[in-house]
């Protein structure tokens, strides 16, 4: 049924119908409800009205630099009423993945942020490696660096302190084929205010994968795990859930893979032309990135919610 009606503009009565047909709405953050520290106009009202109408609202982000608590603080500061348990960010989801899915018993060698360290500690996992770490001395010294025998996994997230030494240590740990390699996400850029960007976690994951000649298990969108994490805690029915995002290759692909309805907003990365291009392609992989609906901005949901 969906195939014929893909990527339609969501107007008036259709919006009302769509919102009536779902119990939960999952929002990406960057490019959807805010851009850096700037709220997308109308976004806070949309979320608050959805909740007032009895919908459950969740926030799914690939950004690994904040804990769920930090995100809740940011959401509140920007006018969205939200609590930490509504937030599913990759720092949290990676820790959950290692704990619940991998059953990790042992330490993690962490290439990532202080926020990731906190989320790991919250689930009882100790880490080594966070913070600056540079090569010093001759190769004979630094190459033979002693390893912590309790490390059973390498976790890679966004890390401004990424260095050759950290890449080297990760490689040494990964010489043990039983040591897990997990990445928070593969986004190539981390978006900043004003349209600027810095290299994203995807680059760091790629460096480690290349050196170690193996693939990481990636937790973030479009991997299913982000949705499974929400569903495990809140019992969602995918057919009655809506994914709202700005990226076809992460948000929309996740939605489609998990059987959710999908809505593309044009306030972020992907364009309408991108979506239509995928739709015309005939390629099954690309077709999965075509949203059911699109809007110029989430503010277009307001009439349906206010009426």
């Amino acid at each position, binding site marked *: 049924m969906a195939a014929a009606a893909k990527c339609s503009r969501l107007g008036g009565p259709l919006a009302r119908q769509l919102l009536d047909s779902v119990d939960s709405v999952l929002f990406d953050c960057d490019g959807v409800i805010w851009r850096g520290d700037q709220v997308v106009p109308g976004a806070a009202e949309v979320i608050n009205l959805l909740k007032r109408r009895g919908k459950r609202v969740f926030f799914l982000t690939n950004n690994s630099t904040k804990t769920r608590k930090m995100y809740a603080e940011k959401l509140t500061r920007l006018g969205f009423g939200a609590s930490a348990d509504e937030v599913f960010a990759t720092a949290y989801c990676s820790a959950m993945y290692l704990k619940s899915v991998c059953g990790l018993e042992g330490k993690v060698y962490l290439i990532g942020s202080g926020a990731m360290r906190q989320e790991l500690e919250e689930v009882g996992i100790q880490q080594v490696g966070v913070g600056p770490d*540079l*090569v010093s001395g001759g190769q004979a010294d630094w190459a033979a660096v002693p390893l912590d025998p309790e490390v059973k996994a390498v976790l890679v997230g966004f890390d401004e302190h990424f260095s050759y030494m950290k*890449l080297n240590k990760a490689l040494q740990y990964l010489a043990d084929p039983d040591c897990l390699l997990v990445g928070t996400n593969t986004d*190539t850029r981390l978006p900043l205010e004003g349209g600027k960007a810095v290299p994203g976690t995807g680059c*760091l994951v790629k460096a480690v994968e290349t050196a170690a000649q193996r693939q990481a298990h990636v937790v973030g969108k479009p991997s299913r795990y982000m949705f499974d994490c929400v569903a495990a805690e809140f019992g969602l029915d995918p057919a009655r859930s809506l994914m709202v995002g700005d990226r076809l290759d992460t948000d929309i692909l996740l939605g489609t893979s998990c059987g959710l309805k999908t809505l593309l907003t044009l306030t972020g990365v992907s364009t309408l032309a991108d979506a239509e291009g995928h739709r015309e392609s005939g390629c099954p992989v690309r077709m999965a990135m075509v949203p059911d609906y699109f809007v110029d901005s989430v503010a277009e949901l307001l009439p349906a919610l206010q009426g």
Partner: protein
Amino acid sequence: MAGAAGGRGCRMIRGAQIRDVLDAAHNVLFDCDGVIWNGEAAVAGAPEVVRLLKRRGKRVFFVTNNCTRPRENYVQKFSRLGFTDVAEEEIFSSAYCSAAYLRDVAKVQGKVFVIGCPGVLKELQDAGVPVAEQGDEGPDVSVYNLPLDPDVKAVLVGYDERFTFMKLATACGYLRDAECLFLATDPDPWHPLRGGRITPGSGSLTAALETASSRKATVIGKPSRFMFECISSQFDLDPARSLMVGDRLETDVLFGANCGLATMLTLTGVSTLEDAHELQQSESPEKKDCVPDYVVESIADFLQALEE
């Protein structure tokens, strides 16, 4: 010569068979690490092999992806390890060839931003190619407001123990300009160290930068053809009369195949005979190109063929 249907032979050879292969080759190209030496130790018999090949009128070249030293350091290493009369002109490292590419092929007009080690910087200096300041010191500098030098027209990435997120972000900043060249010294994902350990290679740093910039680097080192073209431009080699001897199938042997050379795997380094047989079973043409024509245990096996 191997045809498309049969693929390359992967024949283990010794004695008279080696003599036949060497007779057909006017030029012998050796990889270094794992072929003629391992770290600071020459492969037993290697210096004598090189001497004898030259005595027989063969031209001998050394083709290495190792970009950590300038050529003059390599000359010293050859001498230190007992290889007499190896001249600087016979040594082709990815650092030297990257500098040559920038100066002679790309003819870069401007500076190069380098992620690399002192060896690369020295080769660029010797080639007269200007290098941009690193610029990542100072209190006002962060990844969120990077100072970019408008004279930078190329980015070169290679093995760098001092690699940082800041360098990655800076290089990415330069590569946003589609006119800015993007070069990598070599694609090696890791290098072997003594004692069985490995260390991340240029390939892993290049992968990070390719992902950040959504661009593909032009790779100078093996298996890309450029190093052969560099040698050829100076020495006029006939591929049909040239033999490539290496220890890494996906680097040295593939390089040889890409350049139309006969290829020989020596088992004193990274790749094993099993690796070669596994590639032989593969359906993929690129994997099949990594299968050598010949295999020897060590280049010392040449001695029997040469001493007579």
